[in-house]
C-alpha cells in the first residue's frame, strides 16, 4: 500500500532535460540544413550571374568582330579579292570562304574555358545575313549534329 504513494504525480526529474535536448538538436539540425541550402543556392546564383555576365561580354566582343568584318567587306565588290582576304586576316580568328555572290565568314568568341559563341555570317550584295549565332562547347562547332528529333 505504501508503494503506490511513492510514485511521482507529474513529469519526473530528467524528462524535461531530455525533451529540451531533443528539441534543441532538432532545431540545430534544421538551422544547419537551411543555412547549407541557402549557401549552396548562393553559389549557384553567383555562378549563374557570372555566366550571364561572361556570355554578354563575349556576345559584345563577337558583335564587335561582326562590325569590323562588315565594315571591311563593305569596301569590296569582288569577294575573292586577295586584298579583302588580307584585311580579314588582320582582324584575326576568322574563317572565310569566298562565293561568287558573296563571302561566308565565321569565328568563335570565348565565353569561358569551356564554352564559346560561334558566329557565322554571309555577306552578299543584298546585305549582311547572320546565318549562325550560338553557344558551343569548346572552340569549334560540332560537325555531327546531335541525334535530336526535329519534329519530322
Amino acid at each position: 500500500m505504501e508503494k503506490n504513494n511513492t510514485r511521482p504525480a507529474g513529469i519526473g526529474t530528467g524528462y524535461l532535460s531530455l525533451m529540451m535536448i531533443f528539441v534543441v538538436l532538432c532545431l540545430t539540425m534544421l538551422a544547419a540544413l537551411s543555412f547549407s541550402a541557402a549557401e549552396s543556392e548562393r553559389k549557384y546564383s553567383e555562378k549563374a550571374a557570372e555566366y550571364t555576365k561572361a556570355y554578354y561580354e563575349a556576345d559584345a566582343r563577337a558583335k564587335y568582330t561582326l562590325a569590323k568584318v562588315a565594315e571591311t567587306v563593305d569596301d569590296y565588290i569582288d569577294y575573292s579579292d586577295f586584298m579583302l582576304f588580307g584585311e580579314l586576316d588582320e582582324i584575326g580568328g576568322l574563317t572565310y570562304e569566298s562565293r561568287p555572290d558573296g563571302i561566308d565568314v565565321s569565328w568563335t568568341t570565348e565565353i569561358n574555358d569551356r564554352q564559346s559563341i560561334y558566329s557565322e555570317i554571309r555577306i552578299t550584295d543584298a546585305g549582311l545575313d547572320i546565318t549562325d549565332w550560338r553557344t558551343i562547347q569548346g572552340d569549334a562547332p560540332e560537325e555531327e549534329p546531335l541525334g535530336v528529333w526535329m519534329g519530322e
Partner: protein
Amino acid sequence: MRSPTKSVRGVGRLNLFLLEMIIVLLFFSIASAVILKAFVAADRISAENIRLERMAFCAQSVAESFSVTADLAETAEDIFGIDPENIENATYIEIPLKEDCTYSYMEDAGIFLTMKFVYTEYGKGQVYTAINISFKDDAGNVLYEMNSAAFKPERTVLDYGEE
C-alpha cells in the same frame, strides 16, 4: 492522516523540478538565440540570392532588348514600360526599381538600374554600341554589373544631347 515525511519528500521533488526547469529554460534560451541567428542568416542569404537572380534576369532582358533596339530609351520602354518622352538623356538612364526588379513609381525603390553608353563606333552605314548595365543599392554600392552591345547594320540616329 498524511505523513509529514511524505510531504517533505514531495516539496523536495517539486524544488528539483523547478530547478531543472529553470536550467532547461536558460539553456534553451541561449541555444535558441544561436539557432535563431543561423535561421536569420540563412533567410538573409536566401533573400540576397533571389535579388541576385532577379538582377541577372533583368540585366539579361535589358541586354537582349538593347541588342535589338540599340537605343536606351526604347529599351527602358520595352522592359519597364517607361514613356520615352520622360527620358531626357539617351546615353545615361537611371531607373529606380523595387526589390522584384519592377519599375518603382514611388520612393520605395530598393535598387537603381543604370544603363549607360560606354563605347560607340560608327562604320560605313553601321553602328556598334556597347553599354554598361549596373545595379546599385541606396548607398551606391554596385550589386551586379555587366556589359553588352548592339550592332546595327543600318546607321541609327543617336541623340547625345549635344551639338
